[in-house]
């Protein structure tokens, strides 16, 4: 199992990174690579955010005013692709790169060269995607789900998007392999699986999901490509294929994918809540089992995205019930987090604030999910803003808040400085208020029947759309504070101690000085 790995890492290393651009191009160091992932993700967050601002500006009032409908559609499509594959997933991989070796007491990731490879594919993949805006026919505009036949009718951007997705897939698979191998093979002696911090656990399971479903996405987009260019009939009924088949294959990837974006967030919250509640995590083992069951269930619920395509009744029932079943392990988690805070001596540093907001707001998203899981109700909700509200609640105050909580939690460990708490608090409160102003009204819009992916709407939807847009601009602007806090902290500030937080956080990462040395755990730490 774990051991021999870390015996004692090398003595003759230069303890300093290389200088200049070469450091970043050639690096094999998990901290450098983690930093690159996180910075990349932040840039993508702002690019994707800019697209969201265009969307909300167009929807500010009824009528077509700012952009033409095709461009609008390319905004929704690319906003989703950039946020999912460019912002959220790389952020989690960046956090894994930084924290997994530190938390399990390993000298680095298990396969360092491949680690660098998986990062550097991403900027190229997204260059390809952004370039689609400049080719004849414009960028992809058929929705991030790429449903045929619409997606196949794209212009020159079509193969570009497909190959960009292939590159992102290759990157994710390699990243995931690295995480699994590191966790399974590189744990310090004594760090048994059930002593592992939950962030590592959730990432281990996420990595498994990634390796299982990214190839399926690759397969499905390959079929799109051959349908377009090589006369295959996978999704062409005239040849005996079926466009609905794409949806099945896509969502076989797509549903586990949404858990790929939330399980590491669960892990992060499970680290932060105990620290600032000054209590151990309630129900550690059940957290692990709940995560594993969610991962398992996520493979058998995919068709809840397709209730209205005309499936046999038996299939609808099966997918409805299996989807509702996920609420059980999810409920276990929410219960455990709440119980962790119960009678704790809480303090409200920025990471804790974000974690608590996560707990409340993610749960709202979970509730709307259960509503959507109910077939007859979903007939009504499908393709409305209610769905948009649902997944934004789980993804923004869910996944994105967890990422921010993680950054606020570990940033002093990375940079060696404390950050500006006042500004971070402002960032928290503004984000939390505006995110609700932004997304809560979308529930009402959806229930009233406003369709998604539409640049114009009937006048009865005007009020709540305006509210939502105001929330969006507020939320977007607040994120500038985040960038400022992070940049300031990277440049200097009050020195952080090894413990960073006076709440005495547990875990190996806090035994290292802040900033963590370039090569950590040169000698193997002891785990009791």
């Amino acid at each position, binding site marked *: 199992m774990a051991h021999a790995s870390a015996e004692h890492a090398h003595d003759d290393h230069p303890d300093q990174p290389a200088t200049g651009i070469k450091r970043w191009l050639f690096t094999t160091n998990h901290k450098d690579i983690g930093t690159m992932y996180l910075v990349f993700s932040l840039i993508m967050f702002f690019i994707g955010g800019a697209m969201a601002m265009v969307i909300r500006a167009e929807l500010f009032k009824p009528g077509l005013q700012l952009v033409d409908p095709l461009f609008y559609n390319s905004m929704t499509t690319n906003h989703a692709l950039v946020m999912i594959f460019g912002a959220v997933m790389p952020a989690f991989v960046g956090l894994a790169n930084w924290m997994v070796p530190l938390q399990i007491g390993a000298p680095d990731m298990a396969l360092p060269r491949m680690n660098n490879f998986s990062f*550097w594919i991403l900027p190229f993949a997204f260059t390809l995607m952004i370039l689609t805006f400049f080719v004849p026919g414009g960028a992809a505009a058929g929705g991030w789900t790429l449903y045929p036949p619409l997606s196949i009718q794209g212009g020159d951007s079509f193969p570009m998007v497909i190959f960009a997705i292939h590159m992102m897939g*290759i990157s994710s698979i390699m990243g995931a392999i690295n995480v699994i*191998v590191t966790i399974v093979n*590189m744990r310090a002696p004594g760090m048994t699986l059930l002593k592992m911090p939950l962030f590592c656990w959730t990432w281990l399971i996420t990595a498994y999901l990634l390796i299982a479903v990214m190839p399926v996405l690759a397969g499905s987009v390959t079929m799109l490509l051959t349908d377009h260019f090589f006369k295959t009939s996978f999704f062409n009924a005239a040849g005996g294929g079926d466009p609905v088949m794409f949806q099945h294959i896509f969502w076989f990837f797509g549903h586990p994918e949404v858990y790929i974006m939330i399980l590491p967030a669960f892990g992060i919250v499970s680290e932060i809540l105990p620290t600032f509640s000054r209590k151990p995590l309630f129900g550690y083992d059940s957290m692990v089992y709940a995560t594993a069951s969610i991962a398992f269930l996520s493979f058998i619920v995919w068709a809840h995205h397709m209730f209205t395509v005309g499936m046999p009744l038996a299939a609808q029932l099966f997918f409805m019930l299996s989807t509702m079943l996920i609420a059980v392990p999810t409920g276990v988690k929410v219960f455990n987090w709440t119980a962790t805070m119960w009678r704790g001596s809480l303090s409200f540093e920025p990471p804790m604030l974000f974690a608590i907001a996560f707990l409340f707001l993610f749960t709202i998203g979970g509730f709307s999910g259960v509503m959507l899981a109910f077939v007859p109700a979903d007939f009504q909700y499908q393709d409305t803003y209610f769905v948009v509200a649902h997944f934004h609640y789980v993804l923004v105050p869910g996944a994105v808040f967890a990422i921010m909580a993680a950054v606020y939690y570990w940033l002093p460990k990375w940079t060696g400085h404390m950050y500006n708490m006042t500004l971070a608090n402002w960032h928290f409160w503004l984000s939390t208020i505006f995110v609700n102003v932004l997304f809560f009204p979308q529930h009402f819009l959806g229930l009233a029947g406003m369709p998604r992916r539409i640049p114009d709407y009937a006048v009865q939807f005007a009020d709540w759309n305006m509210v939502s847009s105001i929330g969006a601009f507020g939320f977007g602007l607040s994120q500038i504070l985040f960038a400022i806090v992070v940049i300031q902290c990277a440049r200097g500030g009050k020195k952080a101690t090894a413990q960073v937080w006076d709440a005495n956080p547990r875990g190996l990462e806090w035994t290292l000085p802040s900033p963590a040395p370039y090569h950590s755990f040169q000698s193997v730490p002891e785990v009791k």
Partner: protein
Amino acid sequence: MSDAHAQSADSYYIPHGSPWPIFGSVTLFTLMGGAISALNGWLPAWSLVPGFVMLCLLFIFWFSTVIGENQRGLYNLAVDRSFRMGMMWFIFSEVMFFAAFFGALFYARELAVPWLSGNGVKVFTKMLLWNDYAGSWPSNGPSALGPRANGSFETVPALGLPAINTAILLASSVTITIAHHALIAGHRGQVKFFLALTFLLGFTFVGFQAMEYHEAYTELGLTLGTGIYGSTFFMLTGFHGMHVTLGAIMLTVIWFRIMRGHFTPQRHFAFEAVAWYWHFVDVVWLGLFIFVYWL
């Protein structure tokens, strides 16, 4: 760079600074850019060439670096274990890639085609769209897509070349296992012979497959455009054939390494990785033989 840091064998080897990953990223970008340009008709098909050349160079450079480090004894058992696990998970990802295409095959055969023929609740599909279509497998759909004017096509009989190819791959699985046991027992002469036999069988398989494709295109009316049957048939066997080709090349590389005296009875990760990969393409083939050719 990497070479500068010789390390004691009991520590986990971590390379320092490597140009190959970033070269690999540029390679992928070039390759994909070439494919896009060719598909969109921006450039002729040769635009794929630079990417392929770079890809070959990438493999050569990256693997020689790793092989060199290995020969210098930098990798301890923990590193070896990392490589093994990495390879296993890589193979698992490949399994899932094939699963997507098998899934498409089953879905089309068991659901899409019957539904198009009005089965189950889909009676309106039949009435309104293709009233005279009564699909049964193999099918090229209600519009009978394909090269022949009358829309007919024939399938490759399982008991011809495919059966021979099955025998070939199964035999190659046996030969590589013999080679592996010989390596462990230290009989390097045997290893050389059986390993060579393995990749020769592999290349023979690919040759037969090419003959089969030729026949399908010229005589059976079976092409990639022959409806859903042609799509699933060629995509499944085609991706499999690519994997066999790659596997056979890997076997050849391993054979050259054996000839150079690499590997010990205890430590021969690369050999095992290639062997696993070979068994994997073998198992995929069995699936193909049963579900694509036979049933």
